[in-house]
């Protein structure tokens, strides 16, 4: 348990620090955020033709309302938390990779819902937008990370979790007995 948390915290800090470097911003964060805006706009235009994306900005061509996807709204921090939690937990790398693939898709999928919902919420009420943007969606995205991690941990083969994994520490189960 202790080993899991120490590894989780170290990975969390290291990955977050890496995300903030100019290199990561230029080659990963900015393109990722732009892609998020483009995908959001593409999804929206399936049922609303009055939406356009420019860089990280999503804009209504009818009333000019726009949202800019900034740090904290691109799902990268939530993804970092998930990556740290999955990599810190004792498991085979094969299982970790499956968890990372499915988990990142789940987190980013919900993040698309967040961006799209905020885009329409802001056109309806800025007060509701602020509440959802600053508090509610932040909590929901992290709740998504927790649920994805719980589902992944529960689906791990028992021997994997109990210390039989080739790449996992011997006593990393979150059970009190092994803490």
């Amino acid at each position, binding site marked *: *348990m202790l080993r899991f948390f120490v590894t*989780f915290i170290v990975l969390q800090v290291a990955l977050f620090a890496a995300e903030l470097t100019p290199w990561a911003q230029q080659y990963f964060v900015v393109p990722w955020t732009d892609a998020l805006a483009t995908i959001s706009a593409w999804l929206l235009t399936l049922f609303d033709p009055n939406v356009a994306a420019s860089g990280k900005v999503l804009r209504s061509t009818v009333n000019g309302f726009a949202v800019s996807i900034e740090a904290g709204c691109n799902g990268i921090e939530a993804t970092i938390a998930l990556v740290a939690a999955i990599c810190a937990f004792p498991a085979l790398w094969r299982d970790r990779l499956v968890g990372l693939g499915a988990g990142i898709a789940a987190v980013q999928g919900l993040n698309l819902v967040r961006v799209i919902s905020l885009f329409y919420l802001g056109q309806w009420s800025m007060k509701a937008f602020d509440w959802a943007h600053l*508090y509610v969606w932040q*909590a929901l995205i*992290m709740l998504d990370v*927790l649920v994805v991690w719980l589902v992944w941990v*529960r689906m791990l083969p028992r021997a994997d979790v109990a210390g039989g994994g080739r790449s996992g520490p011997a006593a990393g189960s*979150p*059970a009190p*007995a092994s803490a």
Partner: protein
Amino acid sequence: MTGGSGVTGRSQSSLAGLLIRVFAWLPVTFAIWYVTAPILLWPAAFLAELIGRVTWADIIRGVEQARAELTFATTLKAGSAGAQGGEIVVGVDLLLYSFGLPLYAALVLAAKEPGWPRRLFAGYAVLMPFVAWGALADFLKSIAITMGPQIASQTGFVAWQREAIAFSYQFGALILPTVVPLVAWVVTHRALLERLRSRPGAA
């Protein structure tokens, strides 16, 4: 992930039930958090003031809490060097760094574990220093970076300190408010997690 077929129906419904109860509790806990924030966040405000006034005594003249906003009165002067400007006052919204509280409370209440009030209080106590961290880092970021070189030059912070402040602010705003409540919940609900993970034939 090859063992997914071994998941029991009971544990599936347990996780689904937990999630449903979390969603039922979230509106309640968010409402309570918002309404009671001035009282609920007082320990974080106190901690931020204590640490701030001890560590940056030459910069912070006073700290006041009004509802969920913390106002730092500083000795820093507005305007160009040599000119007599007013003193800089920085406001910080504590809600921005404490929205993990209602999430943690909803998770604890949804889990329905014995001794939940103790778990609720333990998480609250753990979260307060991190709310104070967010508030202080926000204040320092404002005077050392956001308000421009005229203000920053009066703080005496050198380049590496400004880098550290920027990192602390980002970490305190983007990671800690959401990750700490989840970590606190996992730590205080290990037995529940073990039950959620249990399978037929397993201990």
